[in-house]
């Protein structure tokens, strides 16, 4: 009970901290949307009227408390740019981003774990050097280069011309595969290098522990050592990386992909909100991301306990 209460309090403070800092940045450094909403020959009175409608003339803390009220009641208002209700915008874009990012995210991590295990098992030998070289190359390539190269290779007559260049007209599993394959491949390629390097380091550290040497001395097979001893005992950092990547991948990771592949997801909506200063959308995304972090943290704590009983 005390543990749960402590976690709840910690989560609440985190949400307050994140929302306060982000709101501060939005208000002080974010774009002023007034001048994107006024007409060509606006008078000073009209500018003042738009500022009033946007709430810019309210004191900072009044606006911040209003923001908290909106979050608590989930009354997130409407986008200043399009007029669409923010809840409707989230309901429309979030599932698209999840459908787009989950396969690449999961596969990128699973492949990273597999390659990390293989590299750790063959440490210092050619498979390790090959995998490490591949990882460093992957990390060195810009996301943008990977996207443009894959588009040219797989989606145009210059290459194999197998998939659509862009779009998201998904109404069946086949069409989903058509539109999601190249973006997913891009995501896998760009994350695989980082994932493999991280998991390799984790597994190598685990390989060097006494209990692995003991297991070998007792005649445990390679498979048993890999799966039962190395992977299982490395699950805490693996889970940490996996869980805490989720909000970042869904929100920021999808930005370039959604932009270049013309996919109407939350990343693109967030980017547009940032560049235009559409505060209702930004406030909702930031606030809900903070809540998602707290929830994921709770889930992660539970998973820690499941995989390692020593965690209290």
């Amino acid at each position, binding site marked *: 009970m005390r543990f749960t209460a402590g976690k709840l309090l910690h989560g609440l403070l985190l949400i307050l901290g994140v929302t306060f800092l982000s709101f501060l940045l939005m208000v002080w450094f974010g774009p002023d949307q007034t001048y994107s909403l*006024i*007409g060509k020959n606006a008078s000073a009175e009209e500018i003042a009227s738009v500022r009033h*409608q946007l709430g810019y003339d309210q004191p900072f803390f009044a606006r911040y408390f209003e923001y908290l009220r909106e979050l608590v009641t989930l009354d997130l208002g409407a986008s200043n740019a399009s*007029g669409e209700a923010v809840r409707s915008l989230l309901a429309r*874009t979030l599932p698209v981003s999840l459908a787009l990012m989950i396969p690449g995210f999961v596969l990128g991590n699973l492949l990273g774990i597999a390659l990390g295990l293989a590299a750790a098992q063959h440490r210092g030998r050619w498979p390790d050097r090959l995998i490490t070289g591949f990882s460093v190359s992957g990390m060195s390539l810009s996301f943008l280069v990977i996207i443009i190269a894959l588009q040219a290779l797989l989606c145009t007559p210059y290459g194999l011309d197998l998939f659509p*260049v*862009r779009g998201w007209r998904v109404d069946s599993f086949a069409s989903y595969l*058509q539109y999601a*394959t190249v973006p997913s491949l891009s995501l896998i390629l760009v994350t695989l290098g980082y994932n493999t390097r991280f998991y390799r380091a984790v597994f190598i550290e685990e390989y060097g522990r006494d209990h692995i040497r003991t297991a070998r001395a007792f005649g445990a097979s390679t498979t048993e050592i890999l799966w039962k001893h190395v992977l299982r005992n490395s699950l805490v950092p693996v889970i940490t990386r996996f869980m805490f990547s989720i909000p970042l991948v869904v929100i920021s990771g999808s930005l370039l992909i959604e932009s270049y592949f013309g996919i*109407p997801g939350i990343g693109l909506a967030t980017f547009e909100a940032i560049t235009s200063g559409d505060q209702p959308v930004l406030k909702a995304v930031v606030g809900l991301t903070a809540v998602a972090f707290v929830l994921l943290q709770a889930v992660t704590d539970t998973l820690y306990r499941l995989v390692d009983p020593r965690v209290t």
Partner: protein
Amino acid sequence: MARRFPGLLHRIAVAAALVLTAACSEPANDSGAAEATVYRHAMDGAPRSLDPAQASSVYAKMLVVNLYDTLYRYKYLARPYELTPNLADGMPQVSTDGLIYTIRIKPGARFIDDAAFPGGAGRAVTAEDFVYSLKRHFDPATRSRGAWLWQDRIVGMEQWKTDGADYDAPVPGLRAIDERTVQIQLITPFPQLTHTLAQGFAAVVPREAVEHYGAGFAINPVGSGPYRLDGFDSSGATLLRSESFRHEPFSLEAEGADPAAAGTGSFEHLEGRAPPFIDRIEVQFIAEDAARWNTLIAGEADFIKVPVSQFDSVLASRAPPRLNAEMAARFDLAANLESGFVHTDFNMDDPAIGYHPDPDQDARNRGLRCAIVKAFDWERRNEVFYYGIGRVFPGIIPPVAPEYDTSQDRTWTERDLDGARRLLRESGWHADNLPTLEYGFPSSVTERQMFEQFRSFMADIGYPAEKIRPLTFATYGDYARAYLNREVMLVTTGWTMDYPDAENTMQLFFGPNASPGSNSANYDNPEFNRLFRASATLRPSPMRTSMYRNMNRILQEDCATISGISRTLILVWNREYTMLPDRSFVGGFFFRFVDRAGAPAEEPAN
């Protein structure tokens, strides 16, 4: 473990093959559905709102004029541009004093079926709808971006706004005389009024829909245009032919076709057919040049505005722009001169470069501005940033305006380094006492390159590089805020004309329009202002044209702006389609005339 890998790899390979097979197969069509024609139009930007009151961008206008009706539009094929009735039943009847406009609305125009209407069935468009639509612009709650077109023009409108914008209260100067007749009474003659009624801002909206959807009206358009919206998000919009759109046979003559002009023959097959000719238009919003280009090449778009970076691989010649053989086999081309121009204004409110209370210093400042104008190299600017196919012109009457003077003096757009140095010398400027210039621009690679080019031009007359500083802003909104608050010394902006009448560019330098109005130079010349006022109520005539040209000359002699260039857009489309695309005054009105004659349909209608 070593023996397990091949088995695992085999299973992964089989699964991947199955997934790729499914992914590469085309999604199945509804076999029973009727065939429909599809046109896929890629735009280089996206509209955020489809509310006509917010339709300020070229992208929003492109869609709005297809979803809604305006009273007037521009003829599809006439160049120079000419107005023609759209929802209006003829051109307006104008009183002899030019103050009262009476306009009849065509019978048979209907709003599409929508949940906003009782029983979900659309209804006839009435004169009252137009009155409501124009009133909306003056309701502060609408946050209109188009109200300025009619600001201080219509009798009683400002009072209506002051009195609380009650839609049930009448506006004396804006009345529905009967179901189909609108009467507009102006405060002073406004010869451009009919042009303003061809803007997306002037589209007719039903009150029921605005009240039903509230703020969401911006993404739930309910209009009487040739198309209705089937889907809209940040990546694109799908338009379906509106079954309730009125039947109006196409006429080459009515659309202003010139029988002697090349290419007119390609539209002859449209004669007598009722637009819109395409059942489904898929508009894709693709800001990234590489992605837009790939989409065209892959055959996933039928139209794009070609990125400047691809001009070399597309064009065989620049003057006139002509496609190379490989491209010409698949595509047609239109070189569309933009209906606007790019210019760099001096902030005349800044005593370091603009007006100064001391007459001597004022004259020295003018000398400095003129030296900068003379040192600016328009040829290089055109060559480096516009592929050499932009149109450089002196002053602020761009080539697309009917008042453009082809024989005017081009002194102020021809680089004259000796003249510039002489002006500096005669005005008492030298490297040590030249003021520090702050050149503003929103942060982007191209804008930065333009700044650096400007700095190199000025270096040629001895302006020290450290005295020309960049003033960068994260977004265009921030930049606009700064220059509208008179905080930027050199303001580079583009202006897209709202209608083909140089009054629309002259007002950019009319004193009372100073910041935060559209006169971002804060230019205020009494003679210019007098001519503007005198010409504002005149109908097009040689005398008015002469007044515009005089104003243009005054502005150039004051050296208040470095101007200007109209960009040439290269528009390319799939040869299977017949069209004359336009990003200028016709804009989105051309969608209804796009035709895919004789070609098999691609996809079923929804």
